[in-house]
């Protein structure tokens, strides 16, 4: 009688992908490449057609030219390195502290209740607004940028991790009690994995904010970094140079985003996602 149940359950696992899936994927790639070429082409054409002043906006060809010029002068690498360092260091510090505080708050309920109103109040404050203070305290170097990025990434991770760790599945808790799990074991095997999707939601938000924080802090006062370069290009009315920085920032943002999502997929492997089989 068990045999009857077995094939029923095997069926979904053994189901073959539709034969046309590979073709669909290639069609999608071709379409998105065509879209990219189309957008760049239209941008170039519009700038030329309306004879837009290079003081207002630059065509892709001019941007590429500016980029090549910058590369040959070795203009970017140092600034790029500084900004990336600020983002990565600040994000690591802020996210780690946010996660640890969330764990502490969820383990010690009273502390959580006491802290919560303040956390909500600080959360609703735009953190970039404290940039002038941070610069005042720590100066124009990278330390102030790292601190601002940490501050800006701390809260989304904290709030999301707190709400994730607040999930109390009564059945899973009963299960762990029946097996006489210790507090640490319950945390390690049930509460942390239950909270993981929420924690990653926080990390995704934080990853986007981290770059914003670094650039704003550099605007407020810095010696090096892509934000500094962007302001210099603006002072020189070099729109092509400004656009080069914007493209670089977009590339950094995209890289961070993709990385966080890849880590998320790896860590929360059991979560079924929409569009998991593209």
């Amino acid at each position, binding site marked *: *009688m*068990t*045999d*009857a*149940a*077995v094939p*029923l*359950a095997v069926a*979904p*696992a053994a189901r073959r992908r539709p034969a046309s899936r590979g073709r669909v994927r290639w069609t999608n790639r071709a379409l998105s490449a065509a879209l990219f070429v189309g957008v760049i082409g239209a941008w170039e054409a519009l700038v030329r057609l309306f004879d837009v002043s290079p003081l207002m906006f630059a065509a892709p060809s001019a941007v590429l030219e500016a980029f090549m010029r910058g590369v040959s002068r070795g203009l970017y690498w140092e600034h790029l390195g500084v900004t990336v360092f600020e983002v990565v260091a600040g994000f690591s510090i802020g996210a780690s502290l946010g996660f640890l505080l969330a764990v502490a708050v969820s383990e010690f309920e009273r502390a959580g209740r006491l802290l919560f109103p303040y956390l909500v109040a600080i959360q609703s404050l735009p953190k970039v607004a404290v940039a002038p203070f941070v610069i005042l305290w720590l100066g124009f170097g990278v330390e102030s940028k790292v601190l601002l990025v940490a501050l800006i990434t701390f809260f989304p991770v904290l709030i999301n991790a707190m709400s994730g760790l607040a999930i109390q599945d009564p*059945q*899973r808790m*009963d*299960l*762990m*009690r*029946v*097996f*006489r*799990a*210790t507090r640490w*074991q319950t945390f390690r*095997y*049930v509460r942390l*994995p239950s909270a993981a999707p929420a924690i990653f939601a926080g990390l995704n938000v934080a990853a986007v904010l981290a770059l914003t924080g670094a650039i704003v802090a550099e605007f407020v006062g810095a010696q090096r970094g892509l934000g500094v370069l962007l302001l210099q290009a603006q002072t020189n009315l070099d729109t092509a140079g400004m656009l080069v920085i914007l493209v670089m920032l977009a590339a950094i943002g995209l890289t961070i985003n993709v990385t966080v999502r890849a880590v998320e997929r790896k860590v*929360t*492997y*059991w979560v*079924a996602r929409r569009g998991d089989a593209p």
Partner: protein
Amino acid sequence: MSAAAALADVHAARPDGARPILRFERVGHVFGTESCPLRALDCVDLDVAPGEFVAIVGASGCGKSTLLRIAAGLISPREGAASFDGAPIVEPRGEIGVVFQDAVMLPWFNVIDNVTLPARLAGRDMSAARAEAERLLENVGLTGFSQSWPSSLSGGMRQRAAIVRALMTKPRVLLMDEPFGALDALTRERMNLELARIAEQSRVAVLLITHSIAEAAFLADRVVVMTPRPGRIAEEIPVPIPRPRTPKTLSSPDFAAVCERARAHFLEDGGSE
């Protein structure tokens, strides 16, 4: 009283029935606030002998799940006491296994990791636990599924894995709270046969909670009928059907008699079954 007579019957029929493995003595429990109390259990006396299979049937809200949670050590009763082999139950213990209504598989673990979770939590030798788990999984027809994810199993297979997990601590009592309540009727029948076989093989005492009179009569040595508000034992019905139980059991006159006797309680109650 009929309940006392039934108890006497069972103990007479059982040579090793000297000391119950699980005992409820005048257990009562109240939920809710002091101003608005809700009496879930009232003066429940019940013994389960070693290796005995006792099924509690009752309508929803008759306190049978509360009784099971008390036996599991998950809650302490307001009145009376539950004891395991003479020792009061104050917290969960390894000799008492629990199977919940849902299989409660952790989705981040595959079947073998879920099933060996009790060994992992107790810090036992994992390779021995894995070998033991593989053997038990094979025994319940889950051969080759140890690396599968719980989400890829059917409800019945997940519940079988949950039973294996409960057996991993080598319990002497297995508490089952509506374990097949979420399954379809056909799967449920198959699981009943399976459970009868497991219980007969392992000689573990089982306290099964169910809505289904037929399930109770098919599986148990004794059917305990509970009535709600407050949860009380209305009658204990011995099931004089030999083991092993097979599909033929379902058509025996004794089976029909037990079912009829149990059903009478629910009919006079206004048919809450």
